[in-house]
């Protein structure tokens, strides 16, 4: 069977490739997203004291170490059976909002903006961040500034932009100082301005991407995200909920103790990335999506004024849930807006400077689960320890794994829409990459590896002959 291979996919976090199989007539018959790197963090942490896990797990990725730090610390809180001080929880929430801000800014401005600003069919030599810098310098400056804002919050609280510490089992290691709070608050108006400006710009561009809206992983699926009693956007506390594409609740109140009854993980022969699925329906029918699109579909309100206005407009895109994965980009911008507004609210809370920020305890459970909404979606850390507090086993379910079935389905949909011959063309190739990019996959932690993406597409004929190949 003829196959096109895109290896590696560019402008995503990690190494992967795509293969597209053609039938005898040259029509697309199948497509697969393969992740070609492995790291093995779940194995290497065995035998370590559970208290080391947050710092160790943060090393899994340079983009979202804070998310792993938070999920890991929550799992350790569970092992210690402690309720962390309120101030500590608020400080952790600020860290999570800052992480969402900097990660979404990276995805939108650095990785995907070249497609929006320069066009899907632009010369790949130009269709990169420097192309944006040259032709749209204000947008580039804004993107840099917004990501810098998120990183500065992480650095102010956690001590470092990449691999910060500070979040520990039981809370955080030290309180926030008034001058640190004031320094962050001073930057918030500019962060809000940039985000609102980017949202206005993006909404004006949607009409130019109708073909991509139609074909970028645009299909009915279930969605998974964190939920709570108020049905407000939730990224730190709550339980898990599955809804169908009409937003009917399929499963609810899923917690760390029973997530394995609902979430199955399947290994693949051709990828180091597991496929996660809704267990009651099985691997074949259990596809769902997580991340910004799922969260905005799931919540009834954001809980902040400006984000709620944007959310209301976002909901008007489609009758029930928003199904096109092209809108992940739109959802990311709304989530940045929410995150910056929420940070401002939390920082203006008088309790935020409280001095009681850590609970201390020995292990009280042999098992702990931490669940968090990371920028790319639901993140689960699950640890088991022995009598001495050493890790016996660890399981991490990562957002990109949750989305793997949908990414594969999306690649096939795009390939069927845009691959029309045995000859590879740049615009086609970029759209196949761009649908992967819409999910903002981070392969460092999902497979549990690190590196940069490149691109290799092979077009393979029915008899196995490579009829065309593109690499960069």
């Amino acid at each position, binding site marked *: 069977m003829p196959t096109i291979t895109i290896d590696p996919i560019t402008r995503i976090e990690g190494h992967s490739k795509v293969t597209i199989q053609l039938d005898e007539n040259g029509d697309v018959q199948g497509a697969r997203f393969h992740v070609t790197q492995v790291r093995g963090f779940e194995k290497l942490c065995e035998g370590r004291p559970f208290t080391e896990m947050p710092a160790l797990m943060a*090393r899994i990725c340079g983009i979202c170490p804070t998310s792993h730090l938070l999920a890991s610390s929550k799992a350790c809180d569970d092992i210690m059976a402690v309720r962390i001080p309120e101030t500590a929880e608020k400080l952790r929430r600020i860290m999570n909002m800052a992480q969402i801000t900097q990660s979404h800014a990276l995805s939108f401005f650095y990785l995907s903006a070249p497609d929006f600003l320069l066009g899907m069919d632009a010369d790949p030599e130009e269709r990169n*961040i*420097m192309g944006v*810098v040259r032709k749209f310098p204000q947008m580039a400056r804004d993107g840099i500034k917004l*990501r810098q804002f998120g990183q500065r919050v992480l650095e102010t609280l956690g001590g470092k932009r990449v*691999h910060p510490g500070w979040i520990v089992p039981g809370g955080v290691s030290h309180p926030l100082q008034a001058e640190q709070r004031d320094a962050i608050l001073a930057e918030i108006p500019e962060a809000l301005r940039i985000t609102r400006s980017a949202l206005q710009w993006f909404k004006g561009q949607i009409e130019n991407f109708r073909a991509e809206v139609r074909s970028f992983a645009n299909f009915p699926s279930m969605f998974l995200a964190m939920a709570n009693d108020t049905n407000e956007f939730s990224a730190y506390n709550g339980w898990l909920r599955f809804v169908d594409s009409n937003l009917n609740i399929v499963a609810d109140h899923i917690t760390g103790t029973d997530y394995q009854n609902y979430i199955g993980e399947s290994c693949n022969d051709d990828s180091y990335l597991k496929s996660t699925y809704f267990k009651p329906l099985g691997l074949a029918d259990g596809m769902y999506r997580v991340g910004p699109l799922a969260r905005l579909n799931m919540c009834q309100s954001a809980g902040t004024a400006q984000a709620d206005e944007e959310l209301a407009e976002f909901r008007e895109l489609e009758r029930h849930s928003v199904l096109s994965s092209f809108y992940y980009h739109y959802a990311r911008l709304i989530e940045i807006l929410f995150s910056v507004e929420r940070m401002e609210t939390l920082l203006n809370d008088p309790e935020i400077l409280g001095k009681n920020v850590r609970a201390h305890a020995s292990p009280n459970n042999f098992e702990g689960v931490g669940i968090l909404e990371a920028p790319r979606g639901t993140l689960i850390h699950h640890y088991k320890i022995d009598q001495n507090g050493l890790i016996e086993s660890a399981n991490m379910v990562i957002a990109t794994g949750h989305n793997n079935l949908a990414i594969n389905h999306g690649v096939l949909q795009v390939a069927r829409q845009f691959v029309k011959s045995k000859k590879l063309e740049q615009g086609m190739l970029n759209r196949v990459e761009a649908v992967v990019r819409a999910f903002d996959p981070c392969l460092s932690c999902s497979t549990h590896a690190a590196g*940069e993406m490149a691109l290799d597409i092979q077009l393979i004929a029915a008899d196995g002959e490579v009829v065309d190949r593109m690499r960069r």
Partner: protein
Amino acid sequence: MAAPRALLIGYGNTLRGDDAIGPLAVERLRGLLPEAECVSCHQLGPELAGQMAAFDLVLFLDASCDGAPGTVNLERLWPDAGRAASLTHHVHPAALLELTQTLYGHAPQAMLITGVGAAFENHQGLSEAAVRAIVEICRIAPRLVQSFPSLW
């Protein structure tokens, strides 16, 4: 004449042995060059461009495995569009200069100072060669700042 506005950026992975030469050198230089702004980071990123635009000169401090362990190499840098296509992982300092020039209309004069290390495995702590390199960097960097711009 007013002292030049100098920015020192030391970068590297402090968990990979001698790759910590840059961050550790810049920490020592904080005391030796109190008038300079010092930044220690894991890796270079586009976010540094806005900061760089406000300075007359930038010294990039990095580790290298090219050359005799313990030695120090200097390389004058200019904005380089050819290196600036990606700007995600492995950002070269010349790419940052290009970004700074393009976005902010001014790129500082710049020098890359690399100390040649001997051990880059997963561990903390420096080899004897890396310690020698840091001592040498801390001797050279103040001279480069103090001689700016006359000897540049």
